[in-house]
């Protein structure tokens, strides 16, 4: 079973990299760009056929290592 974890900085945490990318795109003339945040994407294959169990394992990975919960938030998607 394959999952994707998307990690982004929480809304109230300054994202200087995202800001620079945002400003660059705006300076390239993309005027409709309102806001941009940069994050991380992690793809995980699991040997587990029960989706609920698999989801819990990914959740545990996020909490124990992949995500710093003080500054980051995450979403898990089955792909």
């Amino acid at each position, binding site marked *: 079973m394959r999952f994707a974890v998307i990690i982004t900085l929480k809304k109230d*945490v*300054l994202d*200087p*990299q995202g800001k*620079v990318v945002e400003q660059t795109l705006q300076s390239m003339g993309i005027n409709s760009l309102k806001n941009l945040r940069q994050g991380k994407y992690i793809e995980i294959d699991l040997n587990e056929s029960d989706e609920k169990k698999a989801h819990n394992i990914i959740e545990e990975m996020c909490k124990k*290592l*992949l995500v*710093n919960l*003080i*500054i980051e938030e995450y979403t898990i998607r089955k792909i």
Partner: protein
Amino acid sequence: MNSSVIVFPGSNCDRDVATALTNLQFKNKMVWHKDSELPKSDLIVIPGGFSYGDYLRSGAIAAKSNILKEVIKAANSGCLVLGICNGFQILIETGLLQGALLRNKNLKFVSKDINLKIINNENKFCNNYKKNSVISLNIAHNEGNYFTQKDHLKELEDNNLIPFKYCDIEGSINESSNPNGSLNNIAGILNNNKNILGMMPHPERMVDNLISNSNGIELFTSILS
């Protein structure tokens, strides 16, 4: 006094700190991250560098290494623990110190000598410094922008858990003297028991007048006294 310096793949200030400790009469041992036993230590130093190439987040992988389990046990039973630069990032990732170290606000790797004000000296790491004095140490980091929740920031300020803040040569703490965007110009923090210190500046680089200044010596002699 017995000290241990923890070495990870990618540590690069381990020998500097070992030299500083040995010159100041510590009996020092180097401890490899795969070891599962910690030598008898009064002080554990987690040195600067780029452990595991800063993969995932600075310090995140090192915080899960074998020896860190022993460091956490020792820290929780009162052993003095000093984390410098990447060592501070590792202590944050273990949860021994709270908060987070974000990418520097200006997105630049900052490597220069900066001024620090001694805000609190009533702890085992700083008691040989004069309160409110200004010292100069070196910083060299990409993720030193200290961030924490409002409640915790208040707790740090109220309980004298901030030993150093970035300042200018006169000792003024302001935005222009903040090299990385840290909240309240914080350069280092202590845990509640004041036996764990994490700091971004490098005291071990400032122990020899021949190559720099000697402003870092008092940190080590404070520990000895």
